[in-house]
């Protein structure tokens, strides 16, 4: 298990991505799966950076674990900000025209579709969001 605790600000998305990619490269993770994980980091860490402590800033912890049979990577995002369950919102209507479209909810929808598992819990004052990607 590897863990990184860092200020939840947009400027740190690249640092978190590099930290996770380093673990994925050690596992010979296929490029496509790695890019899907990187997108998930952008959406989830980006959300924490934008909303968890707004207008203040605060820390977030990103934990990377590897499970076997099947080989998978589990990434947990933890923050102490306002309680927010991104899985509670309904999926966006992806059949609307350009004029009718709204972007809200699209990020978490993309993550749901590209990951093998996603779960959320609020415990001891912490938002705990976990994604799993088989590799």
């Amino acid at each position, binding site marked *: 298990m590897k863990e990184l605790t860092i200020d939840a600000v947009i400027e740190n998305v690249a640092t978190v991505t590099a930290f996770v990619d380093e673990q994925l490269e050690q596992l010979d993770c296929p490029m496509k799966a790695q*890019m899907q994980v990187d997108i998930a980091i952008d*959406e989830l860490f980006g959300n924490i950076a934008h909303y968890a402590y707004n207008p203040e800033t605060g820390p977030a912890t990103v934990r990377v674990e590897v499970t076997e049979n099947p080989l998978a990577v589990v990434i947990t995002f933890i923050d102490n900000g306002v309680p927010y369950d991104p899985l509670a919102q309904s999926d966006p209507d992806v059949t609307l025209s*350009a004029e009718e479209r709204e*972007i809200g909810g699209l990020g978490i929808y993309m993550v749901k579709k590209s990951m093998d598992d996603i779960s959320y819990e609020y415990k001891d004052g912490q938002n705990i969001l976990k994604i799993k990607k088989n590799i």
Partner: protein
Amino acid sequence: MTIEKKVNGNELTVVLTGRLDTTTAPNLDAELKKDLEGTEHLIFDFEALEYLSSAGLRVLLSAQKTMNKQGDMVIRHVNETIAEIFEVTGFSDILTIEE
């Protein structure tokens, strides 16, 4: 991400290299705002774009809405990961994607 722009009359080609994400999408948005006025044909070249997140989709949607009013917009050389994102989000029905 780097943004390279080529103007040819009323045609604007935008070549993106790297990742179009939360950090970089605002730069593309700002660049497009500068140049879309008077553009009738907007071409995105995604040959060297690794991936995009919803922040990137937001900018593409906004550009598409603008171009719907004043001309056309196409996206070329989309990789497999990006093609799948367009498919899953229904953006493949909104955008014009060319080989």
